[in-house]
């Protein structure tokens, strides 16, 4: 039993996800060990949103819960109002996000989109820039649940809402950025092979 615990403790230390814990852990008194092992030497903490910036979570539940919510509100509000509400949701997400994080390079829309995706989902996104429009293709959309491909609602309209509001709010800091409108052209939730958003420069 003790041997298993020691092995488990070593595995957790070597493979841990928490940077703070790496190399810093020391065995302390038996009474403290339970709390201290799992919180990196700190007592239980109430996280602030700023602290969340350093934390990663798995995105598995988000598309499933989101798909259920879309199904639920669609019945009550109808398709048009549901799409509108999902865009509003994206706008609110962008407003919340900008309170705690801003892209470091706000020189071009392409850079903002790429950096935002990298920050939110830890991966790169395909962005194609043309004179008056920018095209975003996402083959692994975080909100389009893979089990649903026959919906009449583009689930990822929330993403286009987020991008639109994010860039339009960043204009306040960088007036060189143009006013934009972002539309969802294709969605995996509607059977497309990828999700596609079009940013139109006004």
């Amino acid at each position, binding site marked *: 039993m003790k041997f*298993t615990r020691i*092995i*488990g403790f070593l*595995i*957790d230390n070597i*493979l841990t*996800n*928490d940077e703070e814990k790496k190399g810093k852990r020391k065995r302390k008194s038996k009474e403290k060990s*339970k*709390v201290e*092992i*799992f*919180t990196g030497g700190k007592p*239980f*903490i*109430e*996280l*602030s*949103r*700023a*602290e*969340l*910036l*350093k*934390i*990663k*979570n*798995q*995105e*598995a*539940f*988000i598309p*499933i*819960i*989101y798909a*259920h*919510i879309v199904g*639920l*509100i669609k019945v*009550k509000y109808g398709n048009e109002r549901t799409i509108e*509400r999902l865009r509003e*949701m994206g706008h*609110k*997400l962008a407003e*919340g*996000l900008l309170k*705690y*994080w801003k892209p470091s390079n706000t020189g071009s829309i392409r850079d903002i989109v790429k950096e935002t995706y990298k*920050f*939110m*989902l*830890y991966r790169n996104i395909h962005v194609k820039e043309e004179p008056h429009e920018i095209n975003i293709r996402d083959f*692994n959309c*975080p909100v389009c649940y893979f*089990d649903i491909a026959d919906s009449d609602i583009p689930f990822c309209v929330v993403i286009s809402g987020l991008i639109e509001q994010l860039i339009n709010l960043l204009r306040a800091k960088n007036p060189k950025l143009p006013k934009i409108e972002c539309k969802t052209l294709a969605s995996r939730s509607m059977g497309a092979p990828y999700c596609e958003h079009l940013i139109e420069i006004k």
Partner: protein
Amino acid sequence: MPKERIGFFGKILAKIGKHFYWWRARKMNGLIMSLDFLECVRVIYEYHGNNLPLALKTFKELGRSAGQSVIYEFLDAGKRIFSRRLQDFPILLESSWYIFMGDHISGAEFIAERYDTDEPARLVWQVPRCVFCAGLKQDTSIVVNKETMDWEKTKLTWGSVVCGVMESALQSILDYVVLPFNVKVEESKCVMKGDRVSEYTAYFLPKKQ
């Protein structure tokens, strides 16, 4: 055929396996996850005419459906460590929590049933760093506290979606290993209702014949 006990190699497999699955998983930043969660609750909150307890109840149901979908994918991999011994459930719980949240839970403990007080067997675990409640006290757009959640009556908290997910996940495992229990999960302590820490309790209720 499910194992009777998890055993030494099962424990090691659980310890290593959780890191492998976490490494493979598609990840999302904690801030965007927390904000997304808040906005999802807000949609349901408005749907129910600004009734928070009803929104949390719906959210628990959504969590149950989500848990079923996700655990279904993991049943095949998990069968190597599932056992029929309830005392092994803290190990399963610690591993699955790490797979999904990338964080450790604290002191997951199995408490056997007490016949003198009719208390069912239960599994208790604490979450040192709850991402769901983070910064919510400073956000005035939805007032979340013991009163607005109507906790005394409903026992529903901000983490009710997690309760739903865990309820269906644990139930699926129990059914898989053919143990005659129904699971009910409650967030027994929640930062938003004034507790110092987030704590979940899973009750194992014997199925009626």
